[in-house]
Each structure stands twice: as C-alpha cells, then as structure tokens.
C-alpha cells in the first residue's frame, strides 16, 4: 500500500456531504431571495389594501372627532403592525402627524391615501403618505434565509454526526480490527479464527461477509498447507524412483538386461578390491556365442539381438541372486562374475551354463535355432590385476574356441 496520508471513509463521506450541502445551501439562498422579494412585494400591496380598508376609515373617524392622541396611536400602530418605515398624516386644518423611523422622512413617497370625512361624501379631511422602507426586504430576506440556512445547517450537521457515528461503529472499528488481525497473521497462527466483537444485529452486512470470507480463506489455506506436505513426499518418492531408474539405465545393457561394459569396469574393480582386502575368492567366466557372426549374417541383426537377449536371460536366471552378476562385455561376449567362488566351482557353473544353453534352442519366429557358447574360466590370483585376470580368461576362451567350440576351459596358471 502506498504511504499516503490516512483518511477515514467517514471523513471522506462527511467532507462530500458538506460540499454538497454547501452547494444546496447556495441554491436555497438563491431561491429564498426570489421568494422573499415576491413575498415582500405582494405583502406590501396587501398591506396597502389593508390600510385602505381598515386604517383609513379609523383615521377618518379619529381625525373628524379631533382625537390627536388616538390619531398618533393609530399611526404608531400602523407603522408597527405593517412594518412601514415612515408615515405622515397631514390634516386639512394644517396639523401634521408622523410615525415611524424619522430618518426615512425624506425618502420617496410610495403611496398617498386621502382621508375622507366620515359619512360626509367627498369631503377630504387629510392625506396619509406612506414612505418607502428599504429595510423591509432585507429583514424579510434575512429572516427567511437565516432560518432556512440555520435549519439546513443543523440538519446537515446531524446527518454528518450520524454518518460518522454509524460508519465508525459499523465499519471503521470492525475493519481496523480485521486489518490488525490480518497484519499479525503468521503461518503458525493461521488456524486462529477471526472474531469481530460487534453489537448484536439482525441482518448480515458487508462486515459479516468479509469475516465469513476471511474464515473461508483461512480454512482453505490450512487445507492447502496440509496437502502440500503430502505432495512433497509423493514427488520425492517419484524423483527417487526416477533417479534409480536412470542409475540402472546407466549401468545396465538395454538389450540383455546385463551390466554394461562401463559399469562392469567400475564394479569389477570394487569386487577385486574387496577380495584383496578380505582375502576372498573371485572367479570370472568369459563367454562368447559360437558362430554369432554367421547368425547375424544369415538371419539378420534382429535375430542376432534376439539371440543375445535369450543368452542374457538364461545367464541371469542361472546365477546366484545378489551374489553373482552378469555383464555384456561387448558384441556377443558376456562376463559372469562369481564372488566367493573358487576355480573348481567356477568350472562347474560354466559347464552348467554351457549345457543349458546347448540344450535350449532360441525360438526365432516359431523356428528354434541351436545356440552354443564357449567359456574361458579364471580365478583371481593374489596380487593379480583385473586386466591380467580378464586376459587369462580371454586366453582360455580363445583356447576353447580353437578346441572346437561349445566347451569350457580353465585358464592356465
């Protein structure tokens, strides 16, 4: 969140209400001014009519009866009651009566009334002059506008106070509480439920929706975190399996399932080292399929592959699990490694393998073909290297081939 000055929603709302209220007040003042002007004008006309109908006859009587006090009282009453600025009564016998604000005596005469003699027809016994009173409009205006603006202002203020109170109570406090809760939320406290203490209310509002949503979010997060551990375990296991598979692929010959040449080189060294360290026995059988080039040439490479696959399968089946192992040394050559085995036992194993292969033709497209192998056997001597061992076994194999194939020969000392 950008670091800007904080301003509550209530403040913003109230500022807007005030702005609008001020604009409306201006309109009201304008309207009231027009109404006041009309009102004052029409009231003045009515007053003049009233004076004509009520005050003039009374004045007529009191002037005729020569009651100066009454005349003065009537004029005072006239100016007071009708908010006239200044009036002047000139009697036919010369007397002058005035009432009202003397400073307006010189102002414009708005209207002159003739005061007739009572019940004597057309005889005029006086003139009543009404002077202009500029203060009346201003007073009426002030009164109207003042009252309207005051009432409007009080109303606006009350609305603002109410809005501020309601927003603070219903929105600001709960939201601040929620914001604080969210800010202090850490993974270990994720399960702590959000509770907002509010006065009881009958209907759900936005705050309740936010609280409910927050609780749903918390539950979802909790579930998600729990799930995540399980999935990490699963993936690790898959990864491990993949790693194993890759490792196996790097060590195994894909055609025969036997250890490949690269892995053979590493492993035979480890076997030889263990024999040296613990003074154990180790023998190897160097095997080669008889006339394999011929099979390849006459029956094709696919048949050759099938023969290799069958030979590998038989070797793996016939050696001791977890102890003996078989490597494809190259082409049609296999090396069977026999730990803990002396040369006599190795000879026996070699013989058994030769016999099984010789008695088991390889099924090639429903056409069994006889396959035989020649084997050179050698036992690791003390101080002998692996290469010397393999060379001795290879020499024995070569001798077996030379002796007519399908046979097993012990390497010479």
């Amino acid at each position, binding site marked *: 969140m950008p670091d800007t000055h904080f301003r509550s929603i209530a403040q913003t709302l109230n500022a807007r209400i005030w702005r609008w209220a001020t604009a409306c007040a201006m309109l009201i003042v304008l309207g009231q001014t027009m109404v006041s002007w009309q009102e004052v004008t029409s009231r003045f006309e009515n007053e003049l009519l009233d004076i004509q109908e009520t005050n003039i006859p009374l004045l007529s009587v009191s002037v*005729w*009866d*020569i*009651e*100066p006090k009454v005349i003065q009282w009537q004029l005072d009453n006239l100016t007071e009651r009708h908010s006239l600025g200044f009036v002047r009564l000139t*009697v*036919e*016998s*010369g*007397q002058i009566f005035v009432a009202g604000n003397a400073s307006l005596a010189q102002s414009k005469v708005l209207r002159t009334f003739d005061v007739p003699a009572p019940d004597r027809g057309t005889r005029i*016994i006086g003139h009543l002059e009404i002077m202009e009173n500029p203060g009346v409009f201003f007073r009426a205006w002030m009164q109207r506008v003042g009252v309207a603006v005051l009432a409007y202002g009080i109303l606006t203020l009350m609305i603002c106070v109410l809005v501020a109170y309601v927003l603070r109570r219903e929105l600001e406090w709960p939201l601040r509480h929620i914001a604080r809760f969210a800010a202090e939320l850490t993974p270990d406290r994720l399960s702590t439920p959000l509770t907002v203490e509010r006065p009881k209310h009958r209907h759900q509002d936005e705050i309740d929706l936010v609280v409910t949503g927050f609780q749903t979010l918390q539950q979802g997060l909790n579930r998600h975190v729990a799930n995540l551990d399980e999935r990490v375990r699963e993936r690790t296991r898959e990864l491990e399996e993949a790693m194993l598979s890759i490792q196996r692929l790097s060590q195994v010959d894909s055609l025969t399932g036997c250890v490949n040449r690269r892995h053979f080189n590493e492993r035979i060294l480890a076997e030889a080292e263990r024999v040296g360290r613990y003074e154990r026995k180790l023998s190897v059988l160097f095997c080669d399929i008889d006339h394999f080039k011929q099979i390849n040439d006459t029956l094709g490479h696919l048949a050759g592959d099938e023969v290799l696959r069958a030979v590998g399968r038989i070797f793996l089946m016939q050696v001791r699990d977890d102890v003996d192992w078989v490597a494809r040394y190259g082409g049609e050559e296999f090396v069977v490694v026999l730990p803990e085995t002396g040369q006599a036992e190795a000879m026996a194993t070699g013989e058994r393998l030769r016999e099984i292969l010789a008695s088991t033709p390889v099924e090639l497209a429903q056409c069994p073909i006889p396959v035989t192998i020649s084997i050179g056997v050698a036992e690791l001597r003390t101080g002998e290297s692996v290469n010397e061992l393999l060379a001795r076994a290879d020499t024995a194999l070569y001798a077996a081939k030379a002796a007519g194939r399908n046979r097993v020969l012990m390497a010479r000392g």
Partner: protein
Amino acid sequence: MRHVVLWLTGWLCPQLVFAMSVVFINPGKSDEVYWVSAARAMEAAAKSLGVSLQVMYAERDHPKAIEIARTIAARTPALRPDYVVFTNDYGTGPEIMRVLDEARIKHFMAFSGIFESAVRQKVGLPRQQYSAWLGSLEPKAEEAGYLTARELIQVARRAKAFGSDGRLHMLAVSGDRSTPTSVRRSEGMRRAIAEAGDVVLDQEIHGAWGREKAAEQAAWLYQRHPEARLIWAGNDLMAFGAMQSWRARGGKPGKDAWFSAINTSSEAMTAIQSGELSALAGGHFIAGAWALVMLYDYHHGRDFAQEEGLELNQSMFVLFSPTQAARFQKRFGNLDFHSIDFRRFSKVLSPQIKRYDFSFSQLLN
C-alpha cells in the same frame, strides 16, 4: 325630644363611633373646582347634620374609584362606614355596587344614575339584586345642557351671528362618550337646537372635560367649520379651552363668537359677568350634600323610598345671570358652604317638609 338629643350628640361629638359615618368616593381631582365644590358642600352638610364624612379622591383615574371601593370593603367591620356615596362616572358604578354589596355596606349613588339599558339589566333596581344599594340622586343633567344652549342661541340671535346660509352655526364640545351626565347634557343641547329651528350643529366633539384638549380640538374645528360662531361646552374648563383658541386666532369671545359653559368655578362666574361667557348653568355640585340629607333621614327612620322614589332625577341647575353670579361669588366664592343650614332640608329635622326641594336657586336667594 329624641331629635334634640341626637342633634346634640352629633353636634358635640361628630367623630364618636355611634355618629353616622359616610365615605364619599370622589371621582374627580382634589384640585378640580367642581369636585372640590361638591366635597366642600358635602362637608358643610355633614357638619350641619352631625355626620362623620370621609372624602376619598380617585383623581379622575377610573379604576382607582373601584380600588377605593375594594379597600373600603376590605376594612374590618368596626372601621367600615355606615354608607358609601359614589358616582357612575366613566361607568364605574356597577362594579363599585358589586364590591360594596358583597361586603354588605349600604351605598348610595349621587351625581349620576343608571342610564344605559345594558347596565340597567346588569344591576337591576335599587334594593333588589344589590340589596345594599339604597338608591340614587341625579341632577337633571339634560336641563343644564338645554338651559345653556337655549340662552346661547338667544344671545347669538340678538348679535346676528348668522352664517352665509342665514343660520346660526354651532360647535359642541362635550365631555366624553360614556358618562351619562355628558350624554344627557348633550341631549339637552340638541333639544334646544331642535326647538330653535335656525341653528345648525356643525360638529360635536369630546374634549374629555379638560382645557388643553378642548383648546387643541377647537383650533381644528374653527379651521374646519369657518362659519361656526356658537360654541357650546359641556363644562367650564372646555369652554375656556375653546375660548383660548379663539383668542389665539385673533377673535374676541362674547363679541365675534359666543360661548356657553356649565359649572360654578369662580373663573366661570367672572366670565359670565364680563360677558365672555354668554350662558352659564351650575349648582348641581350640591347633589352630594342633598344625598347626605337623604341618607341622614334614612338613617333616622325616614326612608325616601315611599315619598320620593328610589332613583331621583331632580332639577338642581340654575342658569346664572350676571347678578346671580355676583351673589354666588359673594356667598360661596371661597367654596365655603357652612352658611347653609342643611337641617332646614331634612324631613327628620324639619317635619313640615313633605317633599324635597333640591333646586340650587333657593340657596342664592
């Protein structure tokens, strides 16, 4: 013999508790000639008859007359008077009667009577609805208005004060609209005009019995009615006010305009002798003294109800000639009426009297 004893007691110790006591609620001011004359005449009669009299002035402040009645009603019984004499000036009579009747204090209306029918309905007749209201004695006010107006017209006719239409134009300044006396005097004035036939009443106004207001009003009137030369006034002060305005216009009362007045002030007596006033009637201030005489007789067992009636409207006014005016000034100029022996007019003290004679002229002869 009983009368002699009573007389002796009253004469020797008038202030004693067993002397008959009367309070007079005087509506006028304590420096107003007419009402002071009335009070002085009552005091003379009281002294003459051995009555204890207290005069209380309302100073022409109408509500005060009612207030005085209330204070009298609020007195402890020992301090209450036997009788209260009051007037109906400005229509205060009914309320005073109500207050005093409630307190069971006997009261008698003098100088005025019940005039309007609405008021009559309210108060009824004496000794009925208000049983403590004994009766009333009223000078024939209409007579005063009539006598002065008739004399004024005769003087003006002789002086040929006719207007351009060949008629005599009169202005009337009466007292007020509510006092029956004022209305009656105006009625008398109008009767005289009606009898004369060649007189026009240009306007009647109400001067509130005072000199100042009448003077101001007269100034307007002369302007408004330039042909008017006869000015009838309901009392002396208003006549003098109107005269003052006439002089202010450069006129000479009695020479180019003619004035009439009612009352017996020394100024009026002087004016009738000098000719500034053309007609003057008066003497009715004596009504209060006559009321005391009636109450004295009532108090001593001679009720006026059978022989005279309950509400008396008696002729009292005298139209003063300059000679009579001079005589009045000589006898009563200082407002001392003790030379009158009021026992001569009491039926109890002068048993030969069958009916009361309340005319003022007999006091001048």
